[in-house]
């Protein structure tokens, strides 16, 4: 019974994904066409890439509220470099990613060196980076050259849209890192118990710092993807996207308490799911003003599942002192 509950809670992402997919498919058969599914994944890329970075931070039990502003600031720098200094788009994009890394490093220093609470530290950065971006642009919309916006329309090998390839690449690299490298696994350990991680001799500070830096780069990269799709960036570029990124990660089963979550399938599905809901609501012609409410309800559900799962696991882990048949039943031999 407990086992079944745990299986359901641990696979909540898949279950919610399939339910949403079926519901929209039934309500609007057009939703199931190959082309509309492709569009959903293409549109999920920009939030997806940011959400991958966010997953790293959430795994340590932290949070990064500055990703939306990071997108804007790095986009402003990119525009300035290309439009005002005449830098090539490739060098421009590289610098843009470095700006993301820089902001991530700033967050990392505040959290791991100064010891600020991640929520407050990244809230400061959120305001700071947007301010810095506005300072550069004077809040005038920035336009980007066609050479950049056409990148979005490239179909690699004639079939795979560029954003999807990029998304796949980011998900792959991040997933392999988290699954199969030493620092990746150690992130799960410190997310589960930072003090225990320290006792086990892990470099908790460095690992935590790394997640904010990765998150910063991912935010800048997500910004580039979005720029290539929109071609123009105005002063509220990225506003509210931190919420979408956190929601995608949490919908994908990442725990806000740290230590639980995957990039693939987790966050990948979460990001696609968010886009699926948004597109699905359009396809089914649900009242435009009802859509945010429905969105909020679905995210609430995902976070609720996360809370229930955490407290449930905690209950299961309570020290078993009395001699009960629990252990015997599990190993299949009841001799106690």
């Amino acid at each position: 019974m407990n086992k079944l509950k745990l299986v359901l809670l641990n696979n909540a992402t898949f279950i919610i994904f399939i339910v949403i997919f079926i519901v929209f498919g039934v309500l609007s058969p057009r939703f199931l066409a190959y082309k509309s599914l492709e569009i959903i994944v293409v549109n999920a890329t920009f939030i997806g890439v940011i959400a991958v970075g966010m997953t790293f931070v959430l795994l340590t039990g932290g949070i990064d509220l500055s990703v939306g502003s990071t997108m804007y600031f790095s986009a402003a720098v990119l525009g300035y470099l290309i439009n005002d200094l005449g830098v090539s788009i490739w060098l421009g994009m590289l610098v843009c990613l470095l700006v993301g890394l820089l902001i991530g490093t700033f967050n990392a220093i505040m959290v791991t060196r100064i010891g600020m609470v991640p929520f407050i530290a990244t809230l400061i950065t959120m305001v700071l980076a947007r301010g810095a971006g506005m300072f550069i642009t004077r809040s005038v919309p920035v336009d980007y050259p066609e050479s950049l916006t056409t990148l979005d329309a490239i179909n690699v090998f004639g079939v795979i849209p560029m954003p999807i390839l990029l998304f796949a690449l980011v998900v792959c690299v991040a997933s392999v890192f988290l699954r199969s490298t030493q620092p990746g696994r150690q992130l799960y350990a410190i997310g589960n118990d930072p003090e225990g991680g320290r006792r086990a001799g892990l470099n908790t500070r460095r690992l935590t710092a790394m997640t904010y830096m990765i998150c910063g780069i991912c935010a800048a990269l997500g910004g580039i993807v979005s720029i290539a799709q929109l071609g123009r960036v105005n002063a509220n570029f990225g506003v509210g996207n931190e919420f979408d990124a956190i929601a995608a990660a949490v919908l994908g089963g990442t725990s806000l308490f740290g230590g639980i979550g995957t990039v693939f399938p987790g966050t990948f599905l979460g990001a696609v799911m968010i886009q699926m809901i948004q597109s699905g609501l359009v396809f089914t012609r649900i009242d435009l003003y009802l859509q945010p409410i429905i969105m909020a309800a679905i995210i609430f559900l995902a976070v609720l599942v996360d809370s229930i799962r955490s407290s449930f696991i905690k209950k299961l882990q309570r020290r078993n002192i009395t001699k009960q048949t629990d252990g015997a039943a599990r190993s299949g031999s009841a001799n106690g």
Partner: protein
Amino acid sequence: MDDQPIFQCKGVSKAFFGIKALDNVDIDLRCGRALGLIGENGAGKSTLMNVIGGFFPPDAGVMLLDGKPYQPESALDATRAGIGFIHQELNLFPNLTIAENIFIDDFPRRGPLINRKSMAERTTRVLRTLGMDFSPWLKVERLMPGERQMVEIARVLASDARIIIFDEPTTSLTAKETEKLFVLMEQLKTKGGTIVYISHILGDVEKLCDDLVVLRDGRITASGLCGDFSVERMVSNMIGRDIGSIYPPKKNIPGDGVALAVRNLSQSGIVNDISLELREGEVLGVFGLMGSGRTELMRMIFGVDDYESGEVVVGGAAVKRSNPRDAIDKGMAFITENRRDEGLLQSFPIVDNIDLVYLRDFVHPVTRLVNKKKVAGESARIAGELRIKCASVDRQAVKSLSGGNQQKVVLGKWLVKKPRALIMDEPTRGIDVGAKYEVYNIINDLAAGGSGVMVVSSELGELMGIADRIIAMSRGEIIQAFERGEFDEEAIMRAAFRVHGDSMRMGSAK
């Protein structure tokens, strides 16, 4: 082997908040030998281990490893130096697999990636030496406490440590698992490994160890070949004084009224069908080993933790479940075992700590403002009665007080009103002998004044010195009750171990 010690502590000292936890301690470890380290709670064993493990540096003294200075700054330094720890408290990550937990600080790698194959092989090999046939990829959250302890041991074995420190490794193990562990320790010794074994189970120490060091109040009171020590001599060196003089003469006479009654209290996996009565004016001792459920039971009675079924009655009225406020209103008081984190507001002055519980009795009925003058007066009175040594009652932060005085502050906050039933969990842990005597006096006075006092302690001698009745707990059940006239250390110990194992592993200690 050779005579040169592999590891030495010379004159190591360490103090916390003015209390000497370690005072000029010398130890030598040699290859192929096991050193038994024994002492009462708070004697300094854990502090010594933490100094060796690099958790904090000693205030004075040096440590030598292979004759060279050893100054660890973190747990990682200790591991790299070949010193492995098996802690009493588990240090595992339940969200990771057994193999990942074993190699968490140093994964086998191929290039940048983890070499899963080699990891699985090495894990399986280590698990097999411990007689466990689990998949290396099983998550630790699915293991039982004893099995988790074995994983902890496997981790240290896999790190190829030359010196392994076992801190009470057997408390959560079954008799069978313990047997396996002892065989393994013998094997380690024959392979030239060095072992430090810390345990309260003196019979085990006698059986396993070659050398012995006895600590008391941070000082070494005896050391030498283990064979030269009988369990009796170990105990007398641990306690170091005649029991009669450490406890004040009893003044209380248990009455007939029931101060606190617990009826059929159960919480699956923690405690099972507990019923007990605490009479007015009685001091009731609760004895059990670490992990017997004694602390969990106390927390449930007071309402800090929830329970599934049963009832707690104070002064004839049932206390609401999981509701400390109601427990306090009915006249219950509770002293937690975790003084530092749960018992005190560390950076607040003494006054604010003492008035915390009954602050609402000092508010003006209409304005709801706190009558500061009255509060300060009352606190000062209690601080004086308890003879809390401090510079200023209303300015000095509690954290600057010594452990004994801190404990008096914790006690003080429950003495503003006389409690009907006072529960004390390890009230003398980590405080010095003098402060202990004063705490015993307070218990004595409270009971003489008609309060029921329930004391949990892992020092049986202490309970025998102050209690009117002792109940022994094991595995979440009350095994047996002993009246003051029939106190017998061996019998009580046996009761505390009864459900624990098929074989008796307790040496007699008189």
